């Protein structure tokens, strides 16, 4: 067992528990986008950041989904430093992917009411949930990451229709951008107000071949336009 301090509370958790699991267990909510209980933690969305310090050491922000509980650690899940980073990240998410209801809900919860960046409509936030779902739960490994940096995207090997893919739809089921679409935001008001702007959640290269939603509601509407 490991003893640590969580938001001023002395707690004891089992060895190997992550900070996110510990916080959840004690009823403290930490927002996440790339985390799922059934999948291995990935630490890419950076929303689950918490401030940790060891006695006498300098504090730093770490992703709680990947950081193991350690003896004597002091953890703060909603400190000013954490909130500042979290809010700006949510603003960045809104600026990139305003069509996700999950993200719009997060924005409301964290009082992010405006977007100061140039508005984009990219949809995919590269959280990697679909990739891990495909590999770990569906045992297919049909999709993965391609390229690096700003060019990074999710695709099948060589962008060809994959033989490994069984069209199970697990990727869409788990996608925070596909699962719940918020169609409200537009250039003038990136923070949601109505369901106006319906566009397909998939990237172009999937075509309909990779999509189990046949016909896809969004694709249908797009064709009609």
């Amino acid at each position: 067992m490991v003893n640590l301090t969580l938001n001023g509370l002395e707690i004891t958790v089992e060895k190997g528990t992550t900070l996110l699991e510990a916080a959840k267990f004690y009823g403290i909510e930490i927002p996440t986008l790339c985390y799922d209980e059934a999948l291995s933690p990935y630490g890419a969305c950076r929303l689950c950041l918490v401030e940790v310090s060891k006695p006498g050491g300098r504090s730093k922000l770490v992703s709680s989904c990947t950081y193991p509980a350690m003896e004597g650690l002091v953890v703060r899940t909603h400190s000013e430093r954490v909130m500042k980073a979290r809010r700006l990240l949510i603003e960045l998410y809104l600026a990139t992917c305003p069509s996700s209801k999950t993200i719009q809900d997060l924005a409301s919860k964290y009082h992010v009411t405006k977007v100061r960046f140039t508005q984009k409509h990219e949809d995919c936030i590269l959280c990697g949930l679909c990739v891990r779902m495909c590999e770990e739960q569906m045992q297919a490994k049909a999709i993965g990451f391609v390229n690096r940096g700003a060019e990074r995207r999710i695709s099948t090997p060589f962008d060809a229709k994959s033989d490994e893919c069984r069209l199970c739809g697990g990727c869409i089921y788990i996608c925070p951008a596909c699962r719940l679409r918020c169609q409200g935001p537009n250039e003038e008001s990136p923070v949601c107000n109505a369901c106006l702007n319906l566009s397909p959640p998939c990237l172009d290269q999937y075509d309909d071949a990779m999509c189990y939603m046949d016909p896809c509601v969004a694709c249908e509407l797009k064709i009609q336009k």
Partner: protein
Amino acid sequence: MSLSGIKIKDQEDLNRLQNVLKKRRNDEECSVAICGGTGCHSSGSEKVREAFQRYLERNDPEGKIKLRLTGCQGLCERGPLVVIFPQEIFYQKVSVDDVEEIIEKTVLNGEILERLLFTDPISGEKYTYSREIPFLQKQKRLLLGNNRLIEPTSIMDYISLGGYGALAGALTKMTGEEIIQEISYALLRGRGGAGFPTGQKWKECYEAVSDEKYIICNADEGDPGAFMDRSLLEGNPHLVLEGLIIGGYAVGAGEGIVYVRAEYPIAVQNINNAIKQAEKLGLLGENILGSGFNFHVRVVTGAGAFVCGETSALVEAVYGRVGEPRQKPPHLAEQGYMNKPTVVNNVESLANVTVIIRDGAERYRQVGTEKSKGTKIFSLVGKVNNTGLVEVPLGMSLREIIFEIGGGVQGGKEFKAVQTGGPSGGCIPESLLDMPTDFDELASAGSMMGSGGMIVMDEDTCMVDIARYFLNFLKEESCGRCFSCREGISRMLEIVEDISRGRSSLEQLELLMELADVVQDSTMCGLGQTSANPVLSTIRYFKDEYLAHILEKRCPAGVCHDLISFSIDKDLCTGCGACAKKCPSKAIEGVIKQAHMINLQKCTKCGICFEICKFGAVQKS
């Protein structure tokens, strides 16, 4: 004594070989060292070597004159360099046509060829001997010093200068723990960037309980303008290899891996060759020097990604996977390559290890500052007179490095800033030049030591443009896993680009600073955490330039395309037509011998006309 096929079985064998080789070396009447480093190689040193060889084959059949193609000697700007021993006569910019004269006059008769001597760019003084040249004299070449004395492809050259003595000493007289203590006492800090104490790193790995351990040499130097590790591996691979074996012995590793980027073909070739030679002599493999210690080394060539300099990404790359950092903990000392305890050290750190064990930590500690000991190699590039590799004691001021060793700014222009630490580093202004260069001081100035890149910028450099350049580099080199790094850098770049186009506001500048803070704070690995440095340090020291772009829509240095325009002064223009001929977009119109004009609609602002006009008629505003 024939040296072919010998095997070194213990320390005595090594001593005997060292003595034989030393004697042979002392018997050499004269030798010619041609620099074969990256810089000189590209300016044609290979052809010069061939010319020497051809001439000597014809005129010196007994081989009295020894020819060596050495590693980088430092003053890359003036290559190809040739040094004639034993007098150490230093010739620069040597061409194939000079070869005959050099041998006939200088080597055989001691006559000095004035035209090939090095001329100091500031004082105009000429120097005959390499030891007199201020560029070399002011340095302390603890690691690079032997580069000009040995052929990197010859293990015998290395051994003749006492090479592998440190390894023999370590294996026979010291335990792993003692070596780690010695390294800790020497206060060696990792030369790859972060400056983590090497002794502590090794200790963690040493203490980890495992049947297998690994030591990896990180030669994935990715900073633009940096070539320290490259020159060490190319010029003195055995120095690094010896350090790697000592490190392996200290932490208890059985296998060493050299991860080197494929873009460094000579380095790959030389380290591979060095490993083969060491194996052949019995300095690598089973039961090294009769100590019972087994150690193997292999080379992995990387596909070249800046992010692979991050240790956990490097380990991924060694497997052959995409180089992406992973979350720590667990640290590499617990779970690294093959999930076994692993230690990753930079090339220069390992070269320092050899020096520390060879000379003793006590002697090593005499150089450097209180907290950082030893020397550091910097690649001094940019708008500086003497570009090249400089190795100086830690703690030397930036001013000394740039103005005394580097010979000041090119063309007598005004110094503006020096960028240290590569893309993740920061820009340091003139007012802080007297600061000693050590890990902590540079970090407190908002920059970092990094691997040792040092880019000098003059008055014609726009700091907003510099921030834009480095952000663009990082945008492409980020692995893209963390949202805060991938999107954060893209967005920072977006704002900086807007500023450079004069389309920004003070609110955007505030937002940029806020974003930079968050990116620095919230990203997983070193790349993201330091990616805001170029922005934060330029805003910190050159805020007036940002404000000029934002408020006055003006680029003070005249660099940002959207904020400058070119015009021709009618009174100064002689109508020679030189500009019109060179203009790539045919934007300059006019009749010969009459004043020309620039058609601003066609002008792409490339600035060629500005550079070409001899009469100063083309003006930038």
